[in-house]
């Protein structure tokens, strides 16, 4: 069966009445589950696996693809409207999405998010169709040294680009990394900084930090601002209208980040998260008006949304072509596929071409359905912001508390949430940016493990990094991003004098 025939037969299944219905159900449920804090694609797919038992394999796959995309989009919704990122991949979405919603353009922000996700996802799927086997070999070439270098680059870049003091950004990142070292050390099994507390042995959950630093910190700020008049500019909160200029502004980041995001997504690890942060950083770096970022910039919202969706498609490359899941979500999807009797791997494309193309076609159709279903719903969803402030504050707080509780069933985690909420607010008062903190926290564990693996391979010598060309190139970027900005500043100061 040729590629074209395969694609066509895949679409034939997806566009049948039954197929469309299951995608619709999947997207709808996925969006709702994804909007709840703490419940991201992983839970959504997990919850749906038992429902798919006994279903026709192709239909089950279509539904899963819908659930997956729906959950990813649902996560962006709570990031944009409530500043409550439920999963790591949507943290960067909140940076500009939330300010935009606060300015009264919630509908527009959600529409931009939906369109960028759609574009990123679609380009990602097309690239997946074209390059899956070839890219799998590149992903394998990435060893621990390269991963460590890549993650270090993401961290230093975000610190060097944050507004205000770079020292504060670096301190924020260091503190985030320190929090990530709490718990049992993965390599030696030593409990670190747990002070004998059993609850800390597994480390601190991502959700606690994300909801604490972003959502709860915002709750305090909303309490002080609850009497500020907002009603005037909130009347067209549900309007989806994107002006021609804004569409033009979006096109650059969407085009670039769908490709870059896909490439980063191919690498196993924190695909969507790293991709969304790197997208945000690069767009800020090349933007003509970087000062707009963080205040509701169209580019700042479109870039991470495009990248995280493109990266999710990228994450399918190692899954489908090698049978190795590169992220938590694709691991659950692998489970779902296995339940349905599909064994992903190098042989899938040859042995079961209908299924292979079926999966890809279902991703494509799931993406379209997501846009078709969610655009009409946006005006209603964004009305959430019209709830009176006093009530919104109490509801958001309960929302965060349940999200964390449902994760571990442990009230200790809720106390931690409160503590990080206070820490987040103090950081806000003192102008310490939260982004480096959360990124360092997400990447910290993985960075430490890759660094130590790389050093173990080279028997403790740092020279191991020098022998790996890819790692060396990335590390030189790290150095550039740290010493670059101060040097630029010097030049700028000298320039007018000359």
């Amino acid at each position, binding site marked *: 069966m040729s590629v074209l025939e395969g694609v066509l037969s895949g679409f034939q299944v997806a566009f049948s009445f039954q197929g469309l219905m299951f995608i619709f159900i999947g997207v709808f449920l996925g969006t709702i589950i994804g909007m709840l804090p703490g419940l991201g694609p992983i839970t959504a797919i997990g919850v749906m696996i038992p429902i798919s038992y006994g279903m026709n394999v192709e239909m089950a796959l279509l539904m899963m693809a819908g659930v997956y995309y729906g959950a990813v989009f649902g996560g962006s919704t709570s990031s944009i409207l409530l500043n409550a990122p439920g999963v790591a991949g949507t943290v960067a979405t909140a940076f500009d999405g939330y300010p935009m919603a606060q300015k009264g353009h919630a509908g527009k922000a959600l529409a931009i998010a939906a369109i960028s996700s759609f574009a990123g996802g679609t380009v990602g799927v097309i690239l997946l169709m074209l390059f899956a086997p070839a890219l799998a070999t590149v992903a394998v070439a990435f060893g621990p040294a390269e991963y460590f270098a890549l993650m270090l680059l993401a961290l230093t870049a975000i610190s060097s680009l944050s507004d205000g003091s770079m020292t504060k950004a670096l301190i924020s990142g260091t503190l985030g990394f320190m929090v990530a070292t709490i718990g049992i050390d993965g390599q030696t099994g030593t409990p670190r900084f747990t002070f004998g507390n059993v609850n800390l042995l597994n480390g601190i959950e991502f959700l606690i930090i994300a909801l604490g630093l972003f959502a709860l910190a915002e709750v305090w700020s909303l309490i002080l601002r609850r009497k500020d008049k907002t009603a005037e500019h909130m009347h067209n909160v549900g309007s989806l209208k994107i002006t021609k200029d804004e569409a033009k502004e979006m096109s650059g980041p969407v085009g670039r980040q769908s490709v870059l995001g896909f490439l980063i997504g191919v690498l196993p690890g924190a695909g969507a998260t790293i991709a969304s942060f790197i997208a945000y950083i690069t767009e800020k770096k090349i933007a003509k008006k970087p000062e707009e970022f963080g205040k509701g910039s169209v580019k700042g919202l479109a870039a991470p949304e495009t990248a995280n969706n493109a990266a999710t498609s990228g994450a399918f490359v190692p899954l489908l072509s090698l049978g190795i899941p590169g992220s938590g979500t694709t691991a659950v999807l692998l489970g779902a596929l296995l339940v349905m009797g599909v064994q992903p791997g190098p042989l899938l494309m040859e042995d079961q071409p209908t299924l292979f193309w079926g999966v890809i076609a279902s991703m494509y159709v799931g993406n379209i359905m997501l846009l078709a279903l969610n655009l009409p719903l946006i005006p209603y969803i964004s009305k959430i912001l019209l709830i009176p402030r006093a009530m919104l504050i109490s*509801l958001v707080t309960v929302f965060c508390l349940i999200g964390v509780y449902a994760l571990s069933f442990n009230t200790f985690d809720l106390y931690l949430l409160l503590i990080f909420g206070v820490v987040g607010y103090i950081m806000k*008062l003192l102008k310490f940016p939260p982004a480096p903190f959360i990124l360092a926290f997400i990447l910290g564990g993985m960075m430490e493990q890759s660094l130590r693996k790389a050093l173990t391979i080279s028997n403790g010598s740092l020279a191991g990094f020098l022998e790996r060309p890819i790692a060396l190139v990335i590390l030189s970027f790290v150095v550039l991003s740290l010493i670059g900005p101060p040097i630029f500043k010097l030049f700028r100061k000298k320039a007018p004098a000359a």
Partner: protein
Amino acid sequence: MLQTTNRKVAIVLFIVSLAYLFFSYNLPEYPYVPVDADAVPLVLGFLLLILSISLFFQKDEEQSEESKKVQQSGIKEVGMLILIAGYIFLYVLLLETLGFVVVSCLFIFLTTITLGYKRHIINAIVSLAIPLLFYYAFNNILKIVLPKGILPF
């Protein structure tokens, strides 16, 4: 010595880094491990130490929007922040004994009143409906069991 905000913060961070380093040095060591569990924490500890010293000598930036807002709002509003934090603390404390529905209902109702919302009937309806809806959805649809507490269902 403590004139600027940066200096005060820097001293706190300096102490944090010293404490972190102290605990890092006290981590047990293992033979035959090229890079032990304390390696990365030591690097982080010294990094924070250096950064806090560097912050100490930096001039204060312009005040943040948020701290201006706190100063404008006055002591009563800051008290409100602490009060709500206290409510959250009570919520967590009582969650497993009283149950999710009861605690959430009380929390939403009281917090909303405290923050100045006057339409009590609407408030009562919302604070009853939302927890019940969540409770039903989590327990029966998502199969995530929230604490039942004193309620029979």
